[in-house]
C-alpha cells in the first residue's frame, strides 16, 4: 500500500502517522510539504493531527485553503482514499470533503485522555478489521473536537451508515459522561458517501503497540491494508 502524509506548518502528529504507516504497511510514506506542487500516485493520503498554521484562525481553515489541499481534493474526487485525524478531520470539514464542523469542546478545555470507541460500521476501508459494535480504546487530544452538523445532515449520516465511530462508556453505551467534547450523537468519526474519506478526532496512530498502553488503533490500519491490497 502506497501512502502519503501531508505536512502543514505546525502539523505535529505527522511523525506519529509516518511511523505507524511504515510499521504497518512496511513502506515509508511519501512526506508531502504543504508547498509541494504534486502528490505522487498513492493509495492513501493522510492528513495528520496538530495545529496547522497555529490554528490561529478556525482550526484547519488555513490548511484547507493551502494549494496542496487542492491536490488532496482531486485525489478524493477520483475516489482515492483519504484519512484525516484530529486536525486532519478539521481540515476535511473545512474543505467540505466531509460535512459538519468541529466546534470548541463543550468544556472549553483541551482534553487528552483515553476514550472508548464503538465501531458503528465495519463495512468501510477503515474499519473492516474490527467487528461491528466492537469497543476499542484510543486516545483523544484536542481543543476543538465537538462535532456538529444540522439535523438533516445528521439524519443522512445515520441513515447511510456513515458514522464510523462513536464515544461510549465501558459497557458500550453512548452516555454524556463518555462523550469527551460534546459531539452530537457522540460522533467520533465519520465517512464520506463514497466511503473513501474518513475523518476522526481520536488518534489511532498513537496506540499501535502494547508499550504505548494498548494496540486499539492497529485494526484501523489493518483495515486499510485489507481494503487496498
Amino acid at each position, binding site marked *: 500500500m502506497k501512502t502519503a502524509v501531508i505536512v502543514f*506548518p*505546525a502539523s*505535529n*502528529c505527522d*511523525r*506519529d502517522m509516518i*511511523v*505507524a504507516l511504515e510499521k504497518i504497511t512496511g513502506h515509508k510514506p511519501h512526506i508531502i*510539504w504543504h*508547498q509541494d506542487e504534486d502528490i505522487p500516485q498513492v493509495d492513501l493520503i493522510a492528513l495528520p*493531527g*496538530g*495545529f496547522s*498554521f*497555529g*490554528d*490561529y484562525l478556525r482550526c484547519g481553515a488555513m490548511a484547507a485553503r493551502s494549494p496542496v489541499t487542492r491536490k488532496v481534493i482531486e485525489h478524493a474526487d477520483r475516489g482515492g482514499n483519504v484519512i484525516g485525524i484530529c486536525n486532519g478531520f478539521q481540515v476535511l470539514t473545512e474543505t467540505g470533503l466531509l460535512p459538519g464542523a468541529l466546534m470548541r469542546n463543550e468544556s472549553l*478545555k*483541551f*482534553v*487528552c*485522555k483515553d476514550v472508548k470507541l464503538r465501531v458503528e460500521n465495519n463495512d468501510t476501508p477503515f474499519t473492516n478489521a474490527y467487528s461491528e459494535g466492537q469497543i476499542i480504546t484510543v*486516545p483523544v*487530544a484536542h*481543543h476543538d473536537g465537538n462535532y456538529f452538523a444540522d439535523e438533516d445532515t445528521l439524519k443522512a449520516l445515520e441513515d447511510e451508515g456513515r458514522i464510523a465511530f462513536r464515544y461510549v462508556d465501558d459497557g458500550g453505551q453512548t452516555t454524556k459522561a463518555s462523550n469527551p467534547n460534546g459531539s452530537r450523537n457522540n460522533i467520533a468519526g465519520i465517512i464520506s458517501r463514497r466511503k473513501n474519506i474518513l475523518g476522526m478526532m481520536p*488518534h489511532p*496512530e*498513537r496506540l499501535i503497540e502494547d*508499550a*504505548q*498502553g494498548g494496540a486499539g488503533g492497529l485494526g484501523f490500519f489493518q483495515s486499510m491494508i485489507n481494503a487496498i491490497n
Partner: protein
Amino acid sequence: MTPKTTPDIKWNNTPEITDALVKEHGLSGEEYALCLKILGRRPTLTELGIFSVMWSEHCSYKSSKLHLKSLPTKAPWVIHGPGENAGVIDIGDNQAIIFKMESHNHPSYIEPYQGAATGVGGILRDVFTMGARPIANMNALRFGAPDHPKTRHLLSGVVEGIGGYGNCVGVPTVGGETNFHPSYDGNILVNAMSVGVADQDKIFLSAAAGIGNPVIYVGSKTGRDGIHGATMASAEFTEDSEEKRPTVQVGDPFTEKLLIEACLELMSTDMVVAIQDMGAAGLTSSSVEMASGGGVGFAFNLDRVPQREEGMTPYEMMLSESQERMLIVLKPGREEEAKAIFDKWDLDFAVIGEITDTGNLTLTFKGEVVADIPTQPLADNSPEYDRPWVKITPKTELKAADVAAPQDMKQALLKMIGSPNLCSRDWIWQQYDSQVMADTIQKPGGDAAVVRIHGTNKAVAITTDCTPRYCYADPVEGGKQAVAETWRNLTAVGALPMAITDCLNFGNPERPEIMGQFVGCIEGMREACEILDYPVVSGNVSLYNETNGTGIYPTPAIGGVGLLTDSSKMVSLAPQAEGEILILIGETKGHLGASLYLDIIEGREEGSPPPVDLMTEKKNGDFVRAQINNDKISACHDISDGGFFVALAEMVMAAKIGMDITVNCDDVPLHACAFGEDQARYILSVTPENRDQILIAAQKENVTAQVIGKTGGQALTFGSAAPISVAELLDSHQSWMPNYMTID
C-alpha cells in the same frame, strides 16, 4: 571620577544619566560605579539598560552564585554541567539527554496564561538551542490557598497556558506536581522543565568564534513586549504590580514549532558555529553570553534587526523579551544556504552583524554608535554578593503521641486523598497532550513519567519534586528530601537516576533569614547529590518571590532524570493482578511532624520534617531497582506525602484492585504508622512465586522488608479500619479539583 566620552558615541539623543535613572534601572551605587569603571566613561542610555539587565538578579545570580558553587556538578556521564543553556548527560549509543528547569513565576502571577506559556517556550528553546529535539515537558506549580480569591483564576490560566503552548508545539507534557499553600497567595510558582535528546556529536554551544563570521538573527520580529522582564523578576511585588502587565511577553507556539524544525534542520548541516536562544534580557544576554564565552566582540547594525513595531529605539531592541528568537553564528559564506531553510519555514532571517576582535559589543543605529561595551567584564565581573544570612533553627520534633488519633481511620483517609494537596490531578493533566510523539510509556500520575527514546528500546524517566513545608521547617533536611524524593520516584519505575536540574525559588535574599533558608537548602541538596551520586547539571534561581515583605516557603524544586536501558523493565504503581503479595521496604517510625496528616486532619503545621538518612535511601533504592530490573516486581510505589495508607490507596485506585493489609506497627501508634511520612520507603507488589526470593535478597542486603498483605477484591482493608471500596476511594480522590474549578 570624571566620566570621559568616546568620540564615536552619539550622545545627542541620550538623556543625562541621573541617580534617579540609575536607581530606576535597579543598579546600586556600587554597581553603577563598577559600570563606570568598566566603560571608563559614563554610559549611554542603551548601555545603562544593558548593564541593568545583565546585572539583574535574574541574569547575574549575584546573590546565589557563591553558594551554587558548592553543588556537585560532575560525574563520568555528565557531558555539560551548569553554565550552558541546559545540562547534558550521556545515555549511551552516542546519544545524550539535554534538560533544564526554569522559573516563570513573576510573569505568571501577573498574566497567568501568557506567563506560563512563555515559560514553556523559553525552556524548550534552552533545550533545542543545544541541538536536542525536545521529547517531554514537565512542570512544578505552586498556588496559594484554594480559598484565596485569585487561586482559581491563576490555576486555570497557568494550566491553560502550559497546555496551549506545549500542545501546539507538539511536545508531550508528561506530568508534574501541583501544591497549594497560603505562602504562595501573592507569589505563585511556575517552574517549567524540558527534556530533549540529541546525538553527542551534534551538540551545539553558545561560545562564538571566528573573526568576521556573520551573526544571524532568526525567528519572530522584535517588539516592545517584555522590556525589563528580567528586572521585574528581580524585585518584590507590591500593590501596583498589576501595572507590570506590559512587561509580560506574549507567546506564539506556532512560530516556536517552526523555529524548532528550522533550527534542527540547520543543525543537521555543518553551517553552525554557535547558537543561543534569546531568553531573559533578549538580544542583550544572548549576544553578551556568546561573545564573552568565545572571547570575541560582536558588531551589530541594529537597523537590520527585524522589528514588529515602528520607531523602536536601540534601548528597546536590546531589552525586548519578544519570544521565539535565536542568535546564530554561521560559518562564512553560508548565509544563503541557511536563509533558504528559514525561508521554507516562513521565519525571519537577518544578518545583523559580525564577529570582531575588539572583545566589545558594539551597536550602531542609523549610522551612529549607540553602545560599545567590553563583554568580558560585563559578563565575568558582574557583582557577586555574600549576603548576610542566619542559620535557620530546625523546628523541634513532634512526637506521634502528641498528635491525636482520628475518630475514624476510613474517614481520615478519604478526607486526605480528597484534599487539595493529595487529590487527583486529572483535571490538570487532561489539558496537556501527554502522548503526542507516541513514545509516552508511563503517563502522568505515576511516580515518574517515562518516555521512550524514539526508535530505541531505551527510555528516560522524569519527575519533579519538592516538599516546601519540610524546607520551611528545616531547610537542610528539606533540601535533602527534595533531591531524595526525585531519586526515589525515578527508582520506583525502574530507572537509574542520573542527574538533576534545580529551580530554586525563594523570597528576598536581602533578608538574612531568607538567605539562611537558601544556604540551608543548598547544603541539604549538596549532601544528597553527593551520596546518591546524582549531580546538578542545570538550573535556575528565582529570588524576590515576596509580596509586601512576606516571602514564599523555600521551594527548591528538583527535576530528576533517570535512564531505563531496557524500557520493557519499567513498572508502574498499579498491581497487575489479584493475589499479589505486598511488601513494604524501609522502616516505619511514624514521623508526623510537618506531615500532611497534621495539616489536613489537625489543621496544624508543626514539628521537624522526617529525617532523610541518605545511606538508607541509597541502600533501599538500589535494592528496589535491582529487583525491578530482575523482573521480580509487578508494581512499585514510593511512600511520600500522606504516608503509607495514602500510598496504598493510590495503588488501589491505579489498579482498581483492592488490598487486604495486616497492620503490624509494633510500638508506633496506628495513625502514625498509617500517615507518618518516614523516608526511604517503597511498597512492592509481587507474584507469590517471587515473594521469598525478594525477602531473602532483602535480608542479604540488610534492607528492611516486611510482607504487609495481598491484593484482591474491591476494597482497601487496612487492619481493623472499616474497608474502603475502590469506588469510594475514586469518588473522594477525583471530585475535589473538578468541583473547585467549576464556576457556577
